């Protein structure tokens, strides 16, 4: 398959994923918009007023970058895990497997789909946030790179989950029992400086903390952790998850008999 043909295959897969996101917009776009609106109303507007400032910002301002990242993380993961597992379950994953598309294109096509949905929903949540607070972006490149790289991390995670999943229950276990707790404890709603020193150390083992804080630094200019460390962790996560995904694809684990 020459490079032009590979590009056509990749573009086909990305367009297919995009069409899927748009076709089921009631499932993909609306729920995060409603959930985040509720977060802003309840935690930001009602409770946030009593909380006061956090790291020098009013609570709504502080929370908004965290909620945007929360939606990017859950949607990029959710898109790939449901799309790829759905293809496995309906057996139309075979359309890709019998084609001459290299495995890395199958992977990047799905990751691109996850990133598209993550950014799409992230943009919707940002618009929702602007109804409640002002967001003056301090470091646009950090905002852009952290959000894209984080979406790649969780798209790869979703892909690995889908490869191992055998039934629909299996695609909700990781988001429910691992992803959501780590995200909520990853500094979305609070600065870890509020925690006792021991729990600050424990929190630093949570990779999502670095992603949320890097993004918050890009928007507000404040962070609990060094930005260089955040990029190192995000890039390392991408490298490890990519290597694992390619290993699974090349061995045919979970997708070929």
């Amino acid at each position, binding site marked *: 398959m020459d490079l032009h043909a590979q590009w056509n295959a990749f573009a086909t*897969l990305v367009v297919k994923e995009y069409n899927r996101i748009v076709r089921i917009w009631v499932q993909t776009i609306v729920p995060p918009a409603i959930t985040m609106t509720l977060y802003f109303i309840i935690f930001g507007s009602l409770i946030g007023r009593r909380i006061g400032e956090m790291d020098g910002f009013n609570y709504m301002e502080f929370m908004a970058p965290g909620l945007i990242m929360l939606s990017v993380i859950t949607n990029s993961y959710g898109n790939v895990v449901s799309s790829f597992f759905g293809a496995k379950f309906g*057996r*139309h994953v075979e*359309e*890709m497997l019998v084609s001459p*598309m290299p495995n890395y294109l199958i992977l990047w096509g799905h990751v691109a789909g996850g990133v598209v949905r993550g950014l799409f929903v992230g943009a919707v949540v940002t618009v929702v946030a602007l109804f409640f607070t002002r967001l003056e972006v301090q470091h646009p490149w950090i905002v852009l790179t952290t959000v894209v790289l984080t979406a790649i991390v969780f798209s790869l995670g979703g892909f690995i989950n889908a490869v191992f999943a055998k039934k629909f229950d299996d695609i909700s276990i990781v988001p429910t029992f691992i992803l959501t707790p780590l995200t909520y404890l990853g500094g979305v709603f609070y600065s870890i400086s509020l925690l006792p020193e021991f729990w600050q150390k424990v929190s630093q083992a949570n990779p999502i903390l670095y992603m949320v804080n890097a993004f918050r630094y890009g928007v507000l200019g404040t962070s609990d952790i060094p930005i260089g460390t955040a990029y190192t962790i995000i890039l390392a996560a991408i490298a490890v998850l990519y290597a694992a995904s390619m290993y699974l694809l090349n061995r045919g684990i979970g997708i070929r008999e």
Partner: protein
Amino acid sequence: MKALELENLSKTYPNGVRALDGIDLAVDEGDFFALLGPNGAGKSTTIGIVTSLVTKTGGTARIFGHDIDRDFSAAKACIGLVPQELNLNQFEKVESIVATQGGYYGLGRRQALARAEKYLRELQLWDRRHDIARSLSGGMKRRLMIARALVHEPKLLILDEPTAGVDIEIRRSMWAFLRQVNEAGTTIILTTHYLEEAENLCRNVAIIDHGRIIEHDRMSRVLRKLHMETFVLTMDREHAAPPALDGYTSRLVDPLTLEVDVESQHGINELFQSLSAAGIKVTSMRNKANRLEELFIRLVDQGGDGRAA
């Protein structure tokens, strides 16, 4: 040029089941080839390995000279697959399914859409192009899978039970279409349980059983073996032993019922002459089974005796 060459191909599943036991098979370019066998014989496993849906545990497979391990991209580009199980995205539109498959094979969007139109028209699905796959009838879904398999114009088309569950009228129109595809130069490998289908379409045949090729020959030669039919005769009185019928094999099912194997070149007239000469009066007669069953029973039994090719 061989469209397909399999050498010592084997597959053992993790549970220890040996699905393929070192099969050798060659299919010439331009052939219309039947791969027959009972359920669980290894047909779908063979096709799965050739199309990379199943990982082999031994042997080699080449598609138009391209090794599926070393040159997988070129090998896969040669193949179009119509699988046995429906594997359509049920919520995707008909045209999109075909064009997307073209994209996976590297076609640009415009070319993929043009090809989709061509094959959907040829398979009488163009009017349904905006419908989701789920809304199609069983026969339409089968035809959609054929259109999808052809969109990149493969040199080798593999059809795994393409007409299963399809009514005879649609089946015959599919046969006409496939014959046309083959005449245009596409090599076709077909698995089917309908002997009539294989007999009508295919020039060469291999029969697989318990993971081994037990017959690999021209269709005409295999059919000659098939053209021995068994008739069940009811006699007017009881007999203690089967009569001696020159040129026929017979056996008593019960004192009033006789089974006789009749080769097509002998004919039934001669059988009745022999029965009359043996003093046997027949009150009724019926064919014992359809020919496909006869084929499998006979060849599979022989295969069990170690006649694997």
